């Protein structure tokens, strides 16, 4: 066939072209450029930070003092001297664990619920107003309910994360399921797809990118909320660590924790982005 021939000829050619010396050099130059821009951004931040620290006459610790404390924290991340004195690594891991348990439970509820709401107008009419009513509520408002039910601050925190993780996943899943193109629906009807085949070969693959976007948003918000949740719950976790450091009047530790929280958040987001790319079919 003619179109095949064209593809067969042009493919290896374009492949070859990708690996010539000049393109490799071009790519290296682009990479160095973008790294340089990022570093410049960080430098600007450091300068502003130093200035503010200088103006505040040292009541806000500057970059150098903070980084020294940051280094100390990271040199013994997993020490454990009893309930109120644990390494920052233990605090982080506890928080990440809670986020994943709450997020996992939330996803298990949100994905099927989103599918039902997206697929059936009746379900949508029944439950969507509820979702819209509860979604704007700060998840922390659920904390007392969690405490009352579970009688444990740690479980109540997980419950807060569970509630947090519901909404973005549910809404994105419902949107994905509801937006299956007519072409796909007609295809399923014309070729007499069974319910099961429609679900596994059309509905789920089509809505998977939407579901993954929802999960990515959910885990992001969960990571935002866990810090505040643990400030309330106390005991252990990175949020507790921030609050405890403030009580110990160590803003260096607070700023270090901010850096760490940002890093973990970034990694979570990148991780979910990678998974989403893995499942994109375009």
């Amino acid at each position, binding site marked *: *066939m*003619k*179109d*095949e021939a*064209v*593809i067969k000829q042009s493919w290896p050619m374009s492949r070859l072209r990708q690996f010539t010396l000049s393109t490799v050099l071009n790519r290296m130059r682009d990479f160095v450029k973008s790294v340089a821009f990022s570093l410049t951004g960080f430098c600007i931040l450091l300068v502003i930070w130093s200035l503010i620290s200088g103006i505040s006459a040292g009541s806000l610790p500057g970059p150098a003092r903070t980084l020294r404390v940051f280094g100390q924290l990271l040199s013994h991340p997993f020490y454990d001297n009893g309930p109120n004195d644990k390494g920052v690594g233990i605090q982080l891991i506890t928080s990440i664990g809670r986020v994943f348990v709450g997020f996992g439970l939330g996803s298990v509820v949100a994905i099927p619920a989103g599918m039902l709401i997206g697929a059936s107008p009746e379900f949508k009419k029944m439950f969507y107003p509820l979702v819209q009513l509860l979604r704007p509520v700060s998840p922390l408002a659920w904390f007392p309910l969690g405490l009352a039910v579970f009688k444990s601050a740690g479980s109540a925190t997980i419950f807060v994360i569970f509630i947090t993780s519901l909404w973005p996943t549910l809404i994105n899943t419902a949107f994905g399921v509801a937006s299956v193109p007519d*072409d*796909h629906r*007609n*295809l399923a*009807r*014309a*070729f*007499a*797809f*069974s319910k099961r*085949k429609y679900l596994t*070969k*059309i509905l789920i*693959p*089509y809505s998977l990118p939407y579901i993954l976007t929802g999960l990515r948003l959910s885990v992001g918000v969960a990571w935002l909320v866990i810090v505040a949740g643990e400030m309330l719950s106390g005991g252990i976790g990175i949020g507790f660590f921030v609050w405890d450091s403030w009580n110990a009047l160590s803003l260096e530790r607070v700023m270090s924790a901010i850096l760490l929280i940002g890093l973990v958040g970034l990694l979570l987001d990148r991780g979910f982005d990678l998974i989403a790319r893995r499942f994109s*079919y*375009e």
Partner: protein
Amino acid sequence: MKQKTISPVHSTEYLKLRDVTISFDTPSGIFTAVKNINLTVARGEIASIIGHSGCGKSTILNAIGGLVTPSAGEMVLGGVKIDEPGPDRGIVFQHYSLLPWLTVYQNIFEAVDSVCKDKTKKEKAELVESFLMKVRLWDHRDKRPAQISGGMKQRVAVARAFAIHPEVLLLDEPFGALDALTKASLHEELVELLQMDNQTDTVVIVTHDIEEAIFLSDKIVVMTNGPEATVGEIIQVPIPRPRDKREIVHLKEYVEVHDRLLYLLMDAFAAQRRPAA
């Protein structure tokens, strides 16, 4: 030409549309796409529906496919009323309608798997393989639709429609998005497939391409303009099939049909505008 035993009752009115009107409920009121469509297609006949865009020709095809329910009138296929999609009709959709997350092979297999329930897995696999061979895509079976050209995508869609062994093939502007060379080779491939197949012989094609309509069909249904489009004229193509693309253009019959179609589409049904209601 292949020989077939055709049941005499359905030989000339195998597919029959009687006074079919199709309207849609839209936010701005009822929109009537096509009105009072009367059309018969004999078993073994190839019919084209041709018209300007917006004349409801795809709507008619979808109705024959059972995907759209007419608001009035009757559609009968092989003596049975059409009211839902069925495996006796294979549809090739306008935009290929391949599932982008499945490979070429899986796209055909899922259709075969779902329609041919009484076949074993091995028989289904053999069926898919034979049709992939026929459209010369066996080497590309593990590619996804995004990795192949438009012409190849359309051949997958054609193979999928043939693979379920329908009696009627419904093609919705199948080659509209393809370049002229790819189009020409796909026309010939389609004719070959029809000759090789001993089940599928009746075809309805929606098109806006005059040359395509004449080359492929026995009968060309010319639509008036929409909304409320209807059958303007039915033209027989008195050239025996199979045809040779290079030779038929010199035939007197070809030129006559071509001129008539051109006149109808460019003049008679071109500037037609309904007065504002």
